[in-house]
């Protein structure tokens, strides 16, 4: 198996895939911290499912499924943002938008029954089958998302953990919510390429949820979150290359194992959670 991997690694498409995997992991690790803290699991799900509709629509008219996904999730983010940002109404709005979006998806699949494999790919993910051009598109999108998250990381953190004081200190909390929603849409479109629409939460929730269990230090938690996403994604891609099981199975399994370890093994290690150094 190792031999097989060493044999594959020099290939350009394998390296591109790993590069895309690394960038998507960084995005997922960063974003999942905020998805967990802001209770946005349901929004992630909706962005992914309507992303599927966008993807199906784009394939139907002969355009890139990756761009379709991005368009679908961005439009959804726009609707969620425009219709309701307050926690109380957000879930309902997300549900309403998602239901209609999926309805459109049903129409598109019906229209392109000949491409059932592609629908399967989008639902369950298969970065190993993404075309060279889309892979490069994915890399560009991921770099832009990381840059966006980098710019708003601090005020986003402030607005997430301490919104009242953040607003008093001049942080534009409403603008931050909208910007985050748009970045989340991009992150969803990227992570879907690896694990698929139905398994999206494994990259956009599990890393952040795992990190929270390990430390109360926000900076360290973000690093750990990215670490878990990297481990799951790269491990998944490499294992999928040498076996016949899809990437997403490996990614979800590795991520889940990390979470279980954080829940049950880390507490046994004692003081890890409190963090004892300054900053």
């Amino acid at each position, binding site marked *: 198996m190792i031999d097989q991997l060493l044999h594959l690694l020099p290939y350009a498409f394998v390296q591109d895939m790993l590069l895309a995997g690394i960038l998507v992991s960084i995005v997922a690790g960063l974003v999942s911290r905020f998805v967990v803290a802001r209770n946005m699991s349901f929004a992630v799900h909706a962005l992914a499912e309507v992303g599927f509709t966008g993807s199906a629509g784009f394939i139907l008219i002969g355009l890139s499924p990756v761009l379709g996904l991005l368009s679908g999730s961005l439009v959804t983010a726009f609707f969620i943002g425009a219709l309701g940002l307050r926690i109380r109404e957000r879930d309902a709005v997300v549900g309403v938008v998602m239901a209609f979006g999926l309805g459109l998806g049903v129409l598109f699949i019906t229209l392109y029954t000949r491409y059932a494999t592609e629908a399967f790919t989008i639902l369950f993910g298969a970065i190993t089958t993404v075309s060279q051009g889309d892979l490069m598109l994915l890399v560009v999108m991921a770099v832009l998302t990381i840059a966006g998250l980098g710019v708003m990381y601090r005020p986003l953190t402030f607005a997430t953990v301490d919104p009242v004081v953040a607003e008093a200190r001049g942080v534009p909390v409403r603008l931050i919510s909208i910007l985050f929603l748009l970045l989340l849409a991009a992150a969803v479109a990227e992570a879907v390429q690896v694990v698929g629409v139905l398994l999206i939460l494994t990259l956009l929730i599990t890393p952040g949820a795992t990190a929270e269990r390990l430390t*109360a230090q926000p900076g360290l938690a973000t690093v750990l979150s990215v670490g878990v996403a990297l481990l799951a994604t790269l491990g998944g891609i490499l294992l999928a290359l040498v076996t016949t099981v899809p990437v997403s199975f490996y990614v979800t399994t590795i991520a889940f194992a990390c979470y279980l370890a954080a829940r049950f093994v880390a507490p046994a290690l004692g003081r890890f959670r409190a963090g004892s150094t300054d900053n």
Partner: protein
Amino acid sequence: MNTNRIGLSSGAPANFPTSPEEPAMCFDRATLAYGDRVVWSELSMTVPRGEFLAVLGPNGSGKTSLLRALLGLAPLASGSLDVLGGPPRRGNSAIGYIPQHAGFDRDVPLRGRDLVGLGVDGHRWGFGRLSREDRTLVQAALEAVAAGPYANEPIGRLSGGEQQRLRIAQALVGDPQLLLCDEPLASLDMRYQREITELIGGWARDRRGTVVFVTHDVNPVLGYADRVVFVVNGRWAAGPTDEVLTSETMSGLYDAPVEVLRVRGRIVVVGEASGAGFDIDEPHHFPEPARAHQ
């Protein structure tokens, strides 16, 4: 709209002794409204620097809105307001803010030290990491409120009093001139109430800082407050504590007989039940106003 008001000695800003510098804040016929609902109207009051202002009144009377106006988050419908020599503006770093105590989720990945750090740089864009000087500031703020021993613990695991000390450190780390406190004593027991009030009052005294302290119970701050403003039903009364908290003024504000008693150094406000039912067993709760005439 209810425009009745009781202007005490603070009615016109000019009535106050002029200080050599700008006052900390100056309301001039200021009216705040959300849509059609007037929160308070024609409020005129000047607070010199270094004073401790207690903001009193029943729930929903616009005490928090007064802080939001000072923070530049709630624009006035009419009138004017100057804060530290200029109009209110968002993100004024000369203002520290302690929000209503809500308590942190048990598992939120945040330490006390991080909360205070956000007070230094949380509003800046970028990834960032506190510089050495900033970390020194954070450490000093933590020590000033004696929060050092638990600064690295997850904040959700701390007691209400400990969290509130961290809030004070967060508000003071930027060395503000004006400190706005929104019910900082709510849900704290007597011992913590005393400690927190002493921390805030002590800061004001030592740094000649100005404090605006929203509270539904005036008693914990009686020893600190230089003046009070009482808001109820869109009306207000402002001035030195002894002039505002009298049976006569309060009866006028409520438009109903209200008795202000001084018992063993505490102030107790009692009124005739007017539908809302004054709770005499809990004398520190100001009676809800009768709203029938609105």
